[in-house]
């Protein structure tokens, strides 16, 4: 990951900053596309410009010297740890996007099984039992106090 000039690249941080500035650029262009009137851009445009200036200040931190102690927070983290984080994030995405499609009961149970396994529960029977009981209790418990009905498939 080191460049020729003895600097390294914090790729994750670079992706994050790209996403933040990308969203700001897209938002500013969209807002300007809607209207150039003061009532539309009074806060959005100055705030977006400020965000670009601040992003420019952050940028050097993404290319620290190879011997710099910066970004030490990721030290000690293995590739396996990161993979587990990404699996959990993917499972949470699956839960969020599938709740209304497959039903809260199936989506919740599936997420719990994957989540428990990823978080380190090795006993398959404990995983399945806890996931099933938790799903039932949550759906009936939360369901009674929330104003919106949860779409269900089995329960």
């Amino acid at each position, binding site marked *: 990951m080191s460049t020729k000039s003895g600097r390294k690249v914090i790729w*994750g941080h670079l*992706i*994050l900053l790209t*996403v*933040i500035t990308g*969203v*700001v650029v*897209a*938002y500013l262009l*969209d*807002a300007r596309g*809607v*209207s150039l*009137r*003061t*009532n*539309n851009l*009074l*806060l*959005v445009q100055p*705030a977006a410009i*400020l*965000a670009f200036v*601040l*992003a420019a*200040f*952050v940028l050097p931190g993404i290319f620290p010297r190879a011997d710099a102690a910066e*970004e030490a*927070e*990721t030290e000690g983290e293995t590739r396996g*740890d990161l993979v*587990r*984080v990404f699996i*959990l*994030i993917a499972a*949470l*995405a699956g*839960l*969020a*996007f599938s*709740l*209304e499609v497959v039903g*809260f009961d199936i989506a919740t149970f599936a*997420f*719990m099984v994957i*989540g*428990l396994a*990823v*978080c*380190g*529960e090795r006993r398959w029977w404990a995983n399945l039992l*806890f996931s099933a009981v*938790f799903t039932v209790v*949550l759906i009936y418990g*939360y369901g009674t*106090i*929330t*104003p*919106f009905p*949860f779409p269900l498939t089995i329960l």
Partner: protein
Amino acid sequence: MIELNSVSGAFTLLSSDINAWLYLLPGLAIGLVFGAMPGISITMAMAFALPATLYMEFLPAIVFLTAIYTGAGFGGSVPAVLMGIPGTSSAVATTFDGYPMARKGQHSEALGIALASSVIGCLASYVMLFVLIVPISGVVLKLGPLEMFAVAVWGMLLLGSLAGTQMSRGLLAGTFGVLLGTVGMNTAGFVRGTIGIPWLLDGVPQIPAMMGLLAASQLIGLINTTYLIEDEGSRNISFAKILGGVRQAFRYPTIIFRGSLIGVIIGAIPGVGSSISNLLSYSETKRNAADGDTFGQGNPKGVIAAEAANSSSEGGAMATMLALGIPGGGATAILLAAFAMHNIVGGPSFIAHNKDIVYAVIFSNFAQAVLLFFVGLGFVYVAGYVVRVPLRFLIPSVLVVSTFGAYAIEGSSAGPITLWVFSVLGWAMVRYGYPVAAAVVGLLLGSLLEGNLLRTNQISGGDFIGYGLERPWALVIFALMLGSILLQVISKRRRVKQAALAAAQTG
């Protein structure tokens, strides 16, 4: 200021109606339980109980609902301390130091501090309400968009104190939050940044976004940890330590008083309320504290400041609701709905003709605050056991509960999807040293800032300075803001001088 005849009438009302007292305990218990659940807001808890008040007398109905209000106000702080999840938007600042305290094994103390500060803050706010309800209502009517903008700007100053060591990253996070807070249709009718998604017309759903940024992101980051508190010995729940936390809160009367005052004043402004007062109180306390550098790392003063302000906002919001009939937020809107259910119209005529009922509501809230202390002690003791649950069970369970809460708020997948997007964003921000709290503050204040800036621009015709000079209350708010910044600079210089002197003496 206080009408003694009405006070005596209030005592007669309360002593002749046993029902008014019977509903206190269930109201507080319902509020605590609902408030502690992520995604169940104070408003939702009160809305859930509203139909039950239809067949009650007027006073017991209002007492029941305000008891839920009080209970839920503190209930939101319990998950904020234990898991870093603000149960309600008014508990955001509680997470800043409450959660680090819990991670250090000081969860019992943090809960005790939060409880005591809430109780004292609530009591103080109702004492102020009792004395000041008439003058407060006069001031609130004079507040326009410029004053609201000034308050929001004051809230934004918090970004500076939340920025941590990497100022540019903190300010970028805050500015990004403000921009996201303005997504959707603004008050002038322009629609921006919705990328064709209909539910973004109303803006980014704030509570799911907040839960994702503050809580879910933390939980994802804890995947390689076994318990919230690493040290096994520190996981015990101690009643003595909770009481120790209560005593600790009493050592900082100035912080509690300042928090209560900020809470009452900001809480009285319609549309601003407790979600800003806790942040303002936190930032002012951090500015004035000698150990301001340790805020965010588990400083009990941060918890006291946040809790005193968010619980006292209830008194301020009640002042506006009772005196003017203007609901400052969802909770007071439900109280007004309860008024309507009993054929009573809130507002100046109500307070003019029914001062005894107003004072009776205030007195019952004194009792609620005292009772909250005892009910809350039992509640936090039981809730504290969450730190003994292994994270392999806690992480997926809390993520699912948060997802359900996000769905319950929005009534569609918009909530869970927002929660997921902001969880990933929050996780990445935490990983690379961006303070997510700054993004949350920006997100909360974005639309408020823009809306009031636009209204000020429209009223003033673009002449902000000329218009500002005609608004004494706006000038007062700006002067207070500048004063607080100046005081901070002076106290910082003094601290640096003292440290240099101490170093010279030891050297």
